[in-house]
């Protein structure tokens, strides 16, 4: 008979008409790693936010270590031994590790005593769990993996017995993910309870003991990890059979469309983000750029799209030079047949305050079809949007609905529809499936392959290795602004790419 660390029963939560949690039950065994999996909007974040006191449930009970508790704030949650590591780290960059950990527990007006206590605790915890970090280093100088360790330590210093990790692997290299899993297993073996919230099936399979699956606000399955499979989990998440593999024939590359030579880019602070990068993309192939986020891929994409000026280097689109520093270059490139699905659809790709039909003409608003002279033709724009919405299965198919009110996947489909339907000769795609449901991922992948098979050149940037492996005909790996290697998907694996992503270059050559 196992002992429960956390039992949530009959948890119900509504946000207006959105029923985020429908009488959800969750039982997490003490000293286990429990996975919570579901698509975006399935209600897993809401459930964890209720457990950590960010929201109050409309009804339902929570039991921690056998005692019924009422959790009204994160302070309550911490006092009951619950700690949370957020997807976006909540650290002060200009503080050292010790200062960050003691934040909120300084121990009075003078910090000396609190600091000494924290330091002692951190050393002890570091030994017990193998969570060692340099204590007096500024947080801004740590690697992402170390930052995450600091977050975990913050929870442990406050005597967390139950640790919630929200999408912990999103920003890690495969090697760092492995290290995280080793740490989590050690925490479990020392008697801690870990809850991992994720949408990555592979990680659930690798590290959890049990897994709970949520779909549309309901808990649909509790499974022993050993007794299930990724396919079964995907089916439970989506509610129908999902093809995890992308079907695609071999590429038939044609003429070179994009050539980049010796491209170097510095950001506003003068830091080199892209260093001497050369690459080419041919018609009818998908070139994937793999890498941990923040290694120069974003800047590379922006320069190629004419949105950012490079320091030096040469870019040719069908042999014609791209001058990203020039005024209105993105407009000119669009006319030349370059289309761009930006990495961050909220920042670049859409205007959330606009109706869907207005967002669907962003960057194309000066095309003749959308009006005459200085005027826009609202009816034509609406019709155009309706056609795109049905072609890309955008739901709800309502061109007048505000862009912000669509789910992430449907917003992404609006951007893709806008860019793909213009029949580009080169498509730049950044993170095409970030924050997108499994069902929509399948759809988006199919569209990209279709476009490739129509002889278009595609440059894909993604931090999802599975996506890179599934779609690319050639894979380039970026680390610290440089290309550390080139592979074909048939002749590489995750380990190999992981090493390149971490900057370990190939010996040969």
């Amino acid at each position, binding site marked *: 008979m196992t002992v429960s660390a956390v039992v949530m029963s009959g948890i119900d939560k509504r946000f*207006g008409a959105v029923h985020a949690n429908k009488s959800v039950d969750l039982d997490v065994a003490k000293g286990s790693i429990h996975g919570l999996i579901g698509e975006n909007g399935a209600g897993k974040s809401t459930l964890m936010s209720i457990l950590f006191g960010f929201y109050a449930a409309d009804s339902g009970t929570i039991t921690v270590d056998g005692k019924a508790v009422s959790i009204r704030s994160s302070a309550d949650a911490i006092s009951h031994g619950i700690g949370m590591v957020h997807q976006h780290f909540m650290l002060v960059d200009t503080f050292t590790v010790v200062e960050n950990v003691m934040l909120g527990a300084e121990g009075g007006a003078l910090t000396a005593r609190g600091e000494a206590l924290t330091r002692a605790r951190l050393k002890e915890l570091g030994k017990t769990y193998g969570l060692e970090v340099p204590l007096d280093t500024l947080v801004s100088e740590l690697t992402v993996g170390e930052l995450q360790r600091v977050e975990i330590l913050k929870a442990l210093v406050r005597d967390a017995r139950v640790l919630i990790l929200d999408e912990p692997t999103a920003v890690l290299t495969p090697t760092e993910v492995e290290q995280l899993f080793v740490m989590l297993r050690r925490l479990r073996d020392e008697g801690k309870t870990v809850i991992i919230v994720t949408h990555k099936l592979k990680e659930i399979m690798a590290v959890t003991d049990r897994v709970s699956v949520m779909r549309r606000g309901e808990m649909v399955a509790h499974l022993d990890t050993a007794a299930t499979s990724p396919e079964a989990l995907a089916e439970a998440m989506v509610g129908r059979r999902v093809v995890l593999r992308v079907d695609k024939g071999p590429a038939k590359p044609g003429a070179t469309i994009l050539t980049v030579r010796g491209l170097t880019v510095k950001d506003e602070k003068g830091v080199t983000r892209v260093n001497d990068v050369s690459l080419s993309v041919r018609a009818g192939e998908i070139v994937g750029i793999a890498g941990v986020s923040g290694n120069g891929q974003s800047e590379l994409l922006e320069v190629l799209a004419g949105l950012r000026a490079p320091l030096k280097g040469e870019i040719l689109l069908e042999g014609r030079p791209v001058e990203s520093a020039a005024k209105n270059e993105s407009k000119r490139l669009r006319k030349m047949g370059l289309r761009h699905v930006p990495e961050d659809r909220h920042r670049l790709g859409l205007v959330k305050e606009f109706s869907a039909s207005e967002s669907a003409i962003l960057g194309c608003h000066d095309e003749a079809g959308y009006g005459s002279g200085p005027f826009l033709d609202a009816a034509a724009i609406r019709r155009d949007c309706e056609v795109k919405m049905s072609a890309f299965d955008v739901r709800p198919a309502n061109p007048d609905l505000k862009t912000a009110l669509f789910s992430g996947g449907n917003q992404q489909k609006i951007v893709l529809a806008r860019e793909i339907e213009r029949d580009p000769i080169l498509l730049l795609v950044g993170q095409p499936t970030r924050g997108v449901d499994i069902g929509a991922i399948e759809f988006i992948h199919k569209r990209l392959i279709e476009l490739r098979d129509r002889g278009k050149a595609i440059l894909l940037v993604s931090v999802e290795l599975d996506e890179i492996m599934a779609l690319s005909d050639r894979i380039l790996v970026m680390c610290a602004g440089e290309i550390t290697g080139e592979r074909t998907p048939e002749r590489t694996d995750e380990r190999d790419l992981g090493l390149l992503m971490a900057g370990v270059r190939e010996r040969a050559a």
Partner: protein
Amino acid sequence: MSAQARGELPLWYSAGLVPVLNVACAFLVAGLVVLAIGASPIDAVRILLRGALGSPYGIGYTLYYATTFIFTGLAVAIAFHAGHFNIGGEGQSLLGGLGIALVVLNLAFLPSPLLILLTIAGAALLGAAWAFIPGWLQAYRGSHVVITTIMFNFLAFGLLGYLLVGPMKRPDSMSLETLPFVEGARLFRADEILGWMGIAMPRTPLNLSFALALLCALFTWVLVWRTRLGYEIRTVGANPTAAHYAGISSKRITVIVMLMGGAFAGMMATNEILGVQQRLIADFTAGAGFVGIAVALMGRGHPVGIVLASLLFGVLYQGGAELAFDMPLMTKDMIIVIQGLVILFAGALENMFRERIAGWIFRKPVEVAP
């Protein structure tokens, strides 16, 4: 799922109930202030409304004040759509007045209709030119328009003061004013126009510039929601990075909206200078540029809202004047207190009730799903 269920509030609520509630609150608090000085709030409201709307005379004055506020409100709103806060309406209006005076005093020999068209153009042009400098500085040098437009208000006062004691001063007068305009440079008053149609109306300052103001409101609506340029303006205002992605130059848009805002503010002078004063005087704006900020906020940047908010302020100005006349306790300063409360509740505290009451009506919690 309907838009409403996903967090969108219906129009009758956000554009109807909320503003009415805000104004009601302002009057409630104003009522308490009136009580505190020992006057009757009920009487005050009665006199205010009767004074503003109870007679053709009152209505004429109310619309005359509203005309001014429509211009200065649009001046703030158009820039606001591109994310900029043009609070230089005061100075831009003064320059508009200067534009009118320059045209009339130099081209008085022209036939009346042509002269009037040129004066309107002159008002718009000089107002726009005055706003161009802060706009250009914002776009290309990163100087914040809020700071620069405030400074340009002072510069405008200084410039007009200098011209009216010096080069443009009427030689035989003690006051700061130019020579009177020729008769051909006068906008027809509403009572004259109605008189031709056989409708009697007492003489009020309400003049043809009211129609010009409504035309400007219509122009703004078409521009912002029906043209490619308006699309670009709204994109820059709502998401500047997306505008960059779309190949829209935020700098160009910044300069354009400031030019337009300056032109609207400049045309305000047609009401005051061309319609009423018939000469350029100092300080004729009397704070109308600042009332325009409140009007634009209350009208939520929409031309219809701006016209309605301008009418409200027209009522407050005209009714307030009557109130000061009829109730000795209600001094001019008290009227300013009431106007200030309306600005406070309708402009600055605009969002105070919005979410809370929406929660009661639509059972929508304030917190938002992650």
